């Protein structure tokens, strides 16, 4: 007996199997042949997926957050998302939500600048690579009515109001209501319902 090969006995089972294999192999070859073309044309975006999903989350958070009235001096004021992170991170965010609008206002995604500590942005997103800036940014944010979104293990302990974490390879988030309230923000229960855990104000 040979391993998996036809021994030429011509049993019906074998013939069927051989035919199934031929079809299957043909299919595979066809698909395989079409791969290089796709592969060449496509840049590798896998690693950016997490960032993009987080960007989409941030965009989806906005309708469920109520800022203090002074956060929007006039009807034209855009919603500013300020990113404490690399240029690349800013770019990835812009790709997903840069051309969007929310609450009837255009969305402006840009990198954090020092003047932001005095106010201006509505959402501050502190990326993992810049996590050491979180406590300082969070202090400034609380004083100026900004929503702080972080993505590190101890994010909520360091002033983060919404903190991303990965659960089973999926992006989930926790919410701390205390710092949000102190910043004068109101977070809708609809958003809290999706959160993994909610740390209540106390």
């Amino acid at each position, binding site marked *: 007996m040979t391993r998996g090969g036809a021994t030429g006995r011509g049993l019906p089972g074998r013939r069927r199997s051989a035919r199934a294999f031929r079809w*299957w192999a043909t299919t595979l070859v066809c*698909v395989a042949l079409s791969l290089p073309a796709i592969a060449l044309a496509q840049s590798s975006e896998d690693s950016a997926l997490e960032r*993009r999903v987080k960007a989409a989350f941030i965009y989806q958070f906005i309708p469920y957050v109520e800022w203090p009235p002074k956060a929007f001096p006039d009807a034209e004021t855009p919603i500013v998302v300020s990113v404490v992170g690399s240029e690349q991170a800013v770019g990835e965010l812009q790709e997903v939500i840069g051309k969007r609008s929310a609450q009837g206002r255009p969305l402006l995604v840009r990198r954090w600048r020092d003047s932001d500590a005095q106010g201006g942005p509505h959402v501050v997103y502190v990326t993992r690579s810049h996590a050491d800036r979180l406590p300082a940014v969070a202090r400034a944010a609380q004083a100026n009515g900004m929503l702080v979104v972080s993505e590190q293990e101890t994010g909520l302990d360091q002033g983060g109001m919404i903190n991303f974490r990965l659960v089973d390879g999926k992006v989930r988030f926790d919410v701390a209501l205390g710092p949000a309230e102190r910043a004068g923000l109101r977070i809708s229960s609809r958003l809290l319902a999706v959160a993994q855990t909610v740390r209540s104000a106390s």
Partner: protein
Amino acid sequence: MRFGRTLKTVAVITVRPSRALGSLVTRSLVIAAALALALAPAAFATAQQRIAQLADLSLEQLADIVVTSVSRREQKLADAPASIYVITADDIRRSGVRSLPEALRLAPNLQVARADANQYAVTARGFGNVLANKLLVMVDGRTIYSPLFSGVFWEAHDVMLEDVDRIEVVSGPETTLWGTNAVNGVINVITKPAKDTQGTLVAGGGGNRDWQGSVRYGGALPGGYYRMYARVTGLEATERANGASVDDASRRARIGFRYDGSDAANAWTVIADAYTGDIDQPGAGRDIDGGNLLVRWQRSLANGTALDVQAYYDHSTLDQGTFRDRLDTLDVDAQARTRIADRHTLVVGGGYRLQRDRTRGGAAQTFIPADRDVTTGYVFAQDEFGVTPALALIGGLKVEHNDYTGVELLPNVRLRWQATKDVSLWTAASRAVRAPSRIDREFFIPGVAPFVLNGGPDFRSEVANVFEAGVRGQLAPRLSYALTAFYHDWKRLRSAEPRPGAGLVFANGIEGSTRGVEGWATYYPMAGWRLTAGGTVLRQRLHARDGVIDQGGLAALGNDPKRSFVLRSSHDLPNRQTVDVMLRHVGARPNPAVPAYTAVDVRWGWHVNDRVEVSMTAENVGDARHPEWGPAANRVEFERAYFAKVLVRL
């Protein structure tokens, strides 16, 4: 949309399974290929658009996107391009099932037949038998099939169902990652982490066929959480069609412990269980005892690499007077998962298992030699190549060594293609092997020579070359589905061949094929109402090889229905009540003939408050009684069963 329509064609073609299945498998493959070629450029063109569309998804949908490959052992199955059905904790609770094999009935890609009060024939894709030997069954990463016959003594695994997080059921070979026995499928029972079982739970109930009670307590320890549980169950004796009792009542008790701890980079799990059981049977009865201790350590490194090391010891004894078995297993497994160049996810690993098996035969049967140390060692590597964000090519090879046949090669190649946001297609080719178990080589009837049945000294591994193709996705926001067509080409299946002067000897004289379709769908007609339907259609052609005289080997390979399906309706009623109805149909089994049956089970549950749930279950409400397994002369029939249960969380 072009995508939607064409894919529906595939679905329509694949749901008509009763027609020529062989050509069907190939036809769907051809269509899949044509689709692949036609849609590839389109998929590429829309990639950029799809990134922008992420922002249109709801919070819930976003939370469902898998963004990294997960490293943990118990989570690998979920994304694999394979036929996977997941039984959730909610499914288990709402169905009212009270034992592990009964819970497996919820998976449309498994065939479950109850042989008596305690014994079950559980299989996927055919070869159903109480000695079924082509499934890999694990509880929290611990393999529970016996090296005696590569099958499971289901009565020894009275898992505490309240603590089960989910049961992943893979039909089809998963041998590269999981090992030799995963020829027809893998059943992976995963219990909840200790963190999710905090506090006290007391549950108990009884009915006309069985009773059970369980207690669990969970608390915190430095760096983590733990739980302890105890559970007792009892089953009443079953009866034959003529009302005669079979004398198979049983009583079982089980205790266990689990600890989960973690810091920023490490996670530890310690699991221990011990059980005892006392099963009536004519004569001396059957005593089962055992225990296990498992330790797992997982570490994530800064570069995204995940390490996972696990070791367990498992002890079990079986004493039924005329036959005794004592098995001690030591198993070590290590694996690492890492990403290379952004597009490759590589998993490499290895393991070793030592099983010290000590048997004492009686007049009726024996193992020669009575005692054996069975060792298995393996290394494997699997790479997932993200050709594009939508297309993944997965190739793997496991090299395994066993004492009987030496080195076995278990390769597989898989392709997964996310054709649209809602549809993914996959196909796979695998070589799977069932290595000899002790029964194949060393089993003899009667207990002393001359024997009428002999283990085959030259028995080799049974081999399957398996081709699969599947589609799964979402037809509408409330309707999801999965369909798989499969073809298994079998070689060297176990035959029983007469040899001059030696009686029957086990050999590898049977070959043939199994083909079929399995699928399921879930539909939410409205809030608070879920419908699930699924089933399997199977055609098996097995025959003795030219020149082989087989006497009974073919019949012993399995006795399978051509079709089986299950329908479930889960309703949420006001005042926190739920009603679940499950209808399952199992086609006739040919040899020995078991008629087809349809059984309806109903459960009503009521959360009286946050702490207390009461429920009533009625099983087989439709028919007075039906058999599921065995020849008419000595099989049991299962009558209506009622069960009332109270569950309290303190």
